[in-house]
C-alpha cells in the first residue's frame, strides 16, 4: 500500500522534466542540451563549456526555445537541422558512424580473446616442459661433488 502511494511522488520529477511549466526554464536542462552540441567557433568544445560569444548566444537560443515550449529533443533537432549532425559531439550510432561506436568494443573483444589464447598456450607449454631434463646426469654428479667439497 505504502509503495503504491509512493509511486506518484517518485514519478513527479520525471513529469516535471517532460513538461516544464511555461515561462520558467531549468538551467540544468539548458546545460544538458548545450553539452551535447559542438561550439561552432571552437576546436572540440561543447556549447556548455565554451566561453565564446557564439556559444553564449547559442545557449540563449536553447533557453529561448525551451521557454517557447520545445522539448529538449526538439531543441537538439533544430540545431541538427541547421548544422547537420556535425553539431552533435557524439555522432549518432547510425551508418558509417556506427564504426566509432562498435570498433572500440570489438577491439577490446579481439584483444581479450588473443590474450586468453596466448596465456593458455604459454601456461600449457610451461607445464609440459620437462624442467628436470635440462640437467644431465654428469652435471648433477658434478654439482653433488662440489657441494660435498664445500661442506666437509
Amino acid at each position, binding site marked *: 500500500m505504502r509503495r503504491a502511494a509512493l509511486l506518484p511522488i517518485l514519478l513527479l520529477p520525471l513529469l516535471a522534466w517532460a513538461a516544464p511549466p511555461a515561462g520558467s526554464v531549468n538551467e540544468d536542462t539548458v546545460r544538458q542540451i548545450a553539452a551535447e552540441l559542438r561550439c561552432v567557433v571552437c576546436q572540440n568544445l561543447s556549447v556548455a563549456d565554451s566561453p565564446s560569444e557564439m556559444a553564449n548566444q547559442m545557449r540563449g537560443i536553447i533557453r529561448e526555445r525551451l521557454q517557447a515550449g520545445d522539448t529538449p529533443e526538439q531543441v537538439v533537432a533544430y540545431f541538427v*537541422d541547421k548544422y547537420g549532425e556535425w553539431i552533435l559531439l557524439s555522432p549518432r550510432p547510425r551508418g558509417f558512424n556506427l564504426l566509432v561506436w562498435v570498433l572500440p568494443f570489438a577491439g577490446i573483444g579481439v584483444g581479450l580473446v588473443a590474450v586468453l589464447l596466448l596465456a593458455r598456450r604459454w601456461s600449457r607449454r610451461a607445464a609440459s616442459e620437462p624442467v628436470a631434463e635440462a640437467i644431465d646426469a654428469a652435471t648433477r654428479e658434478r654439482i653433488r661433488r662440489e657441494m660435498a667439497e664445500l661442506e666437509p
Partner: protein
Amino acid sequence: MAARPVWESHAEVGSDASERGLGPRNPPGGGIGRGAKPPSEGIWRWGKWAIPLAVVPLLILLAYGFRTDPRAIPSPLVGRAAAPFSITLFSGGSLSLDELKGKVVVVNFWASWCYPACYEEAPGLERGWRAYRDRGVVVVGVDIQDTEEAARKFMRQFSLTFPNGPDPAGRISVDYGVYGVPETFFIDRSGRIRKKHVGAVTEAVFTGEVERLLKEPS
C-alpha cells in the same frame, strides 16, 4: 639433435614430452596452428596476419580522414528554403527576407574583427551590389558578434552602401548554420538557398553565382 636447426629443438622437446605422457593438457592438434604443428609456429602464423590486420584498416581510416577537410562542413541548408529573417539596419529602418521575394539575394555574414577575410571581400561585395542592384539583386550584410561602433567604422572604411544590420542574439546566424565569418549565401528568386560560400567571396564567385541565378526563370 645437435644437427637440427634451433627452431626445431623446441618441437622435439614437446613431442617427446607428450609421448611420455608428460603433457596431458596438450590436446592433439590443439591451438591455432594446423594439425599437430608446434605451438611456436602457430603463434608465428597468427602474428604474421595480426599486424597487417590491425594496421591496414587503421591506414585506410587515416587516409579517409586526412583526405576530408575538417573545415569544409557541408551545409544541410543548400537546396532548402532560406530561413526568414528581419534585420534592423544600421542605416535605420528594417529589412525582411520576405520583402525580397522574386529577387536574387546574397546574404553575407561578416564582422569587423574578421581580419583579413572580411576586409578582402568587402570591396568586391560593394562593387557587386552596385553592378547588379538594378537587375534584381540585393546584397544583405549581417554583422555578427560585433559592436556597433566597430561595425560602423568598417562600413565607412569600405563605403558600404548595401543594407547592413547586426544580429545581436545570433538568431539569424544559427538559422543559417553559420560557424564562422565570412560566410555568404546565395538565395534564388524563389527563396531557396542555392550556394553557401565559406571564406572571402571573390568577385568571380559572386558574379558567376549571381549570373547563374539571374538566368533562371523566376
